[in-house]
């Protein structure tokens, strides 16, 4: 009865194995499935009742993964010159290439006549950023880089997610004051 496709061998392409009555009755299969989940349940429950963290999750703002890839695109940083000024020349190429349009730059005149411009305002809205890394590739002077880590990229307030120039110039991850602490796992 089945439709024969020309050029293909005559065989069943749908797995219609005969299932035994026990399998169709489903009780043994339920017992097998529930046994596996029960093992997981009690293993995690035992871990939890001995004051360890059950499960294999990372509680993000408090913990970060130790095995983060060095190629990971994480937090943005602005690279400094030796005198502490940002290396950025306010060419706005990163703001132009940014697909999420999350970079805001306002330029001002630099004291150094060889550099001509420097950013007065340099803000990245991290809550809009998609971490594509285009800004890093577009930068002609290697002024913006991305760290491998994503430490403390959290905030209860969306305005706290807008990182300004001073924040970005600081290489150390900024600790937000509103990180959840003292949670109960």
């Amino acid at each position, binding site marked *: 009865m089945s439709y024969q496709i020309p050029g293909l061998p005559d065989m069943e392409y749908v797995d219609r194995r005969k299932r035994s009555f026990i399998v*169709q009755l489903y009780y043994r299969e339920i017992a097998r499935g529930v046994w596996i*989940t029960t093992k997981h349940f009690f293993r*995690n429950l035992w871990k939890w009742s001995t004051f360890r963290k059950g499960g294999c999750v990372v509680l993000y703002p408090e913990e970060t993964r130790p095995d983060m890839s060095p190629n990971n695109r994480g937090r943005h940083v602005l690279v400094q010159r030796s005198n502490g000024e940002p290396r950025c020349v306010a060419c706005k190429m990163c703001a132009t290439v940014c697909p999420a349009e999350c970079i805001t730059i306002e330029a001002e005149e630099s004291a150094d006549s060889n550099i001509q411009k420097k950013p007065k305002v340099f803000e990245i809205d991290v809550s809009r950023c998609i971490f594509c890394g285009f800004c890093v590739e577009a930068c002609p002077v290697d002024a913006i880089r991305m760290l491998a880590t994503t430490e403390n990229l959290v905030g209860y307030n969306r305005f706290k997610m807008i990182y300004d120039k001073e924040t970005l110039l600081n290489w150390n991850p900024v600790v937000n004051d509103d990180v959840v602490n*003292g*949670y*109960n796992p």
Partner: protein
Amino acid sequence: MESSFLGINTVHFWTYLFLAGAIFMFMFLMGAVMSWSERKQSAQIQDRLGANRAAIPLPFGKKFAMLGFINNMADAIKCLVKENFNPKTENKVIYNMAIFFAFIPAVLAVAVVPFAGVVKPAVLFQAWYLKWIPWLPEYFANNLPDFSFRLQVANLNVGLLFIFAVGGINVFGAILAGWSSNNKFSMMGGMRSAAQMISYEVSMGLALLGIIFIYQNVDIWNLVQAQSELAWGWLPKWGIFLQPLAFFLFFAAAVAENKRMPFDMPEAESEIISGYFTEYSGFKMLLFMFAEFIEIVFVAIMLTTLFFGGYSVPWLLGNGFHFPWGGTIALSHASVVILQILSFQIKVFFFCWLLQQMRWSLPRFRYDQLMHLGWKILLPLAIINLIITIIIVALGGF
């Protein structure tokens, strides 16, 4: 002190009012616990941690998360302050009434289930660990020395039939919600629910007929009493031992009645959005969900009462343990009552746990597989079980 009001004994009135309130609260709290375990237990199964972020802030930077219970409260508050969306339906009355058709039967049917045996307050409060209660021991000892009551809200002699009659109303909630929502997905959910109920209620009823034949009773109280007797002097006459096949059939049918995971066709999220309560928002949706959780508890209570001896502890009689190998442990009346209540609760908790575990372990049936299981496998097995039971009972039984 035999006062009465409108022909009702006052002490009886207050006792049963208290019992009804206590069991009502028990069902609601269990519903809340189930909605909590839906999150936490699934998390444990899937190697996650579950809800732990919603918390009440305390001084010194501490958070009071209560193992995720605060999340439930946040849920309720969120659902209360959400917009009350009303679809353009022809019949607003039925649309709003459907929630209660789904919600009330599960709570109501528990009224005939005994939570423990006969309680004699005058004797109960003589236990040394209950003496601290201020005036109750003296009151009962002085005024009502012979007063005793069953830990069961309504003592109907048609208990089992009452449970099925009330439980059958449950599906009207789904059908009416589906019909009155003016939404094709809701309608499909309601129809699926009705089809599923018919195909499983039959084998459920036939499986229970075996229980009725074995114990010759439909009164839940007498059923539990009969189950606490011993066969051959050592085996408790629990339903699981006398009717093992009926237990498995009833279990499958009860899960299907419950509209939980392997059989959750009426609200299959990936197929028909949310089934019959697609058009319900905010607190109405919460009530539907809550009704579902209470139904889990109800199914667990039914399994306990009909197949695991209800409150009965093996070899525990009114005055203590009488082991089949001859030993006895004398216990006070209060200890016996507490043991019976604990036994019932532990069994109910176990079945709630098992139902949750199954819900998070199993994939959904296809619709034709569901019908195949209901009509072609469970129904013939239920009939075979019934025939064998009738033959055994006719030949003299246990």
